[in-house]
């Protein structure tokens, strides 16, 4: 009896992430049928900057999703166990991204090495000579001759090959858009001269294609260079920094999205209840959020995380693998962040509900004898959705940045979880070294900047499109 070559593992965070994606797709399909929503999203779609940002975000989300398909590889049966029934699977939980990047993951060095380096960063005694030298790397530049002739030439060839590959794929994409997209008469020259895509498809496709060009070029270069070198160097235990940066993306995305998933139901429910029902319910909910928001955010999070850590540490038997424990800690962090950050949105929603309650259509519904909860669900909630959406997208980038700070403070994700925060935290210690180890920090900050900037730009466009005040 043979088992599957892999055993799929569904971590809780994966499941929640997929549920979230399904919900977003469902909402998008629903929104297509709503006139007002379609108009607002149409404004976002027409915004070139927003679409460029959305393209970058989509690339990040794709990487994050690939990294959420977890599995345990089957172990090759040892010679003596041939007859045993069932397959044995590795303890280590990997993801589809790990499989794609297995080269990067497995080719680890001994310790630090600079980006594209051929030698280790630290001196070592070689052979039996007393002299200490920088040893050659096991993988970085291993294909080069002993005298390193052609190191620069090799890099140049690889960069140009990567560029050419990226450009080729991009041109194919442009051709595909040109043939598949709606044909239209070529318009006059625009800002970018004569764009190679049909002008009728509008700035949307143009912005997406323009953004894809640098992404594909960088991707091409990274793949071609990554075949022979450590593009961003290696860290203290010799892991490839590019691999670590790509793995961090999932953690950032999870914290940015799952937190809002916790926060929104609380904020919406309590905000609307306080605003619409009033009376002692309002007093109670107001008291609740004033109390919570009076505690400095980081301290409340720190206190809750410390307590959660005690629970996890005193119950080691709850988790089968270390991946599960790290995952539980990540989820708990999202839960805590959500529990501490719903107050602001709830306050906004309460204020807006107070205004809506006095409007004619709500009064009319009351006069017709529609029940309280039906009014809240059918008449109040739809009119608050723009606030909810704006809050959701605006919070995302803040949460990604907060993760790094919390990990530094020591109340972030599990130290074994790869995240921007843990990367920065471990690299920070090495700044005092001479010469400085700067590449892990630079990679973590660079990736984080790209993600947060794209999220901020996209959030701005969404806010402009949905906020009735800004379109007036």
């Amino acid at each position, binding site marked *: 009896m043979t088992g599957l070559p892999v055993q799929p593992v569904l971590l809780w965070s994966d499941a929640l992430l997929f549920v979230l994606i399904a919900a977003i797709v469902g909402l998008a399909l629903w929104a297509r049928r709503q006139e007002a929503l379609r108009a607002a999203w149409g404004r976002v779609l027409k915004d070139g900057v927003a679409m460029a940002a959305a393209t970058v975000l989509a690339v990040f989300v794709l990487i994050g999703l690939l990294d959420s398909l977890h599995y345990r590889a089957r172990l090759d049966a040892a010679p003596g166990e041939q007859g045993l029934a069932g397959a044995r699977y590795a303890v280590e939980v990997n993801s589809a991204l790990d499989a794609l990047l297995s080269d990067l993951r497995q080719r680890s060095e001994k310790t630090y090495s600079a980006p594209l380096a051929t030698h280790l960063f630290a001196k070592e005694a070689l052979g039996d000579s007393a002299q200490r030298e920088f040893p050659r790397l096991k993988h970085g530049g291993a294909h080069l001759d002993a005298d390193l002739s052609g190191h620069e030439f090799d890099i140049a060839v690889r960069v140009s090959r990567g560029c050419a590959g990226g450009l080729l794929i991009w041109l194919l994409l442009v051709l595909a858009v040109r043939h598949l997209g709606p044909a239209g008469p070529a318009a006059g020259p625009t800002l970018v001269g004569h764009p190679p895509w049909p002008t009728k498809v509008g700035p949307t496709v143009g912005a997406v294609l323009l953004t894809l060009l640098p992404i594909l070029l960088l991707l091409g270069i990274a793949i071609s260079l990554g075949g022979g070198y450590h593009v961003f160097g290696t860290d203290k235990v010799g892991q490839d920094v590019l691999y670590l940066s790509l793995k961090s993306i999932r953690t950032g995305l999870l914290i940015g999205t799952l937190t809002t998933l916790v926060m929104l139901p609380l904020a919406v429910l309590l905000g609307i209840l306080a605003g619409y029902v009033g009376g002692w319910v309002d007093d109670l909910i107001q*008291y609740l959020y*004033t*109390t*919570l*928001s*009076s*505690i*400095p955010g*980081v*301290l*409340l999070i*720190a*206190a*809750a995380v*410390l*307590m959660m*850590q*005690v*629970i996890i*540490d*005193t119950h*080691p038997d709850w988790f089968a693998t270390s991946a599960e424990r790290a995952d539980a800690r990540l989820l708990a962090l999202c839960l805590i962040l959500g529990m501490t950050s719903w107050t602001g949105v709830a306050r906004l929603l309460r204020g807006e509900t107070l205004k809506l309650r006095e409007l004619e259509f709500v009064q009319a519904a009351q006069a017709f004898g529609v029940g309280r909860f039906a009014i809240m669900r059918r008449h109040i909630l739809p009119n608050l959705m723009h606030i909810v959406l704006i809050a959701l997208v605006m919070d995302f*980038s803040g949460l990604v*940045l907060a993760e*790094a*700070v919390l990990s*530094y*403070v*020591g*109340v972030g994700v599990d130290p074994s979880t790869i995240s*921007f925060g843990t990367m*920065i935290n471990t690299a*920070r210690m090495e*700044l005092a070294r001479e010469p*400085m180890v700067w590449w892990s*920090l630079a990679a973590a*900050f660079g990736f*984080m*900047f790209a993600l*947060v*900037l794209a999220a*901020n*730009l996209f959030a*701005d466009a969404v806010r402009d499109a949905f906020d009735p005040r800004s379109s007036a």
Partner: protein
Amino acid sequence: MLAYIIRRLLYAIPILVGVNLLTFALFFVVNTPDDMARMQLGVKRVTPEAIQKWKAERGYDKPLVWNSAAAGGARLTDTILFGKSVRMFVGDFGRADDGRDIAREITTRMGPSLAIAVPTFVLGLFVAISFALLLVFFRATTLDFAGVVLCVALMSISGLFYIIGGQWLVSKVWHLAPISGYSGGLDAAKFLILPVIIGVFGGIGSSTRWYRTIFLEEITRDYVRTARAKGLPERVVLFRHVLRNALIPILTGVVVVIPTLFMGSLLTESFFGIPGLGSYTIDAINAQDFAVVRSMVFIGSVLYIVGLLLTDISYTLADPRVRLQ
């Protein structure tokens, strides 16, 4: 006015009680003192005697809320709730794990925290408002657009990057300021200049954008059109009319922060080695010194409530139409 302040202070009591109960629940009910002791002493190979000793040293060996073994009022007072939580109301925070008195530590560490936080706050406010007014002055031009793009880019950079990058550039490459450390008296200035500049720089993106939105909203009002129609130059309109009228929304966001300046900044203080309350808190979190974390939570919420009160009072000073009653 006085009656209003007193009533607001009375409102603060249930909130503080709530904070107190919340921290009590977090620190003592979610995990029993036994769990914490085991955690502190290392989960494996810990004897019950060691746990008892750890608890007794810290006063955690009492019942949580009701001591049936004691007599009279001591049934309520000889408990963890009273000893660890209720006594915070009179400023008795107990002792940290290293045996030092927390209240004393807080008063001595307040100075360095304020020495960083106040200049950062004042300078940051000034720079952000000036920058925002400049952008509004050049609104709908390329300069305005470039400024907004710069702000979005600045706020997309992690706060850690500003600190690490600033330390590297100013202290290591240019050798302009010491990389970290602190000393009392006037000597402190040379240690403070770098963290203050970095603090101002790090906050500029988001606050400028926020002030710009406020000013832009204000600029569509009728009184602005009147002022322009009178022939006032745009400069005067902005500084005399718009800035003053925008004070209410600005105060809402700004005044509430002032009291919390006492708390210091966790990141700045720990990176620059400044012995303030921020680094005290971060050390306590890392050492899992729950008594200190609990005290800081309590103080933080007291200061926040004071900030809310100050906000309301500042409205009456900024806008004579506002009456507190």
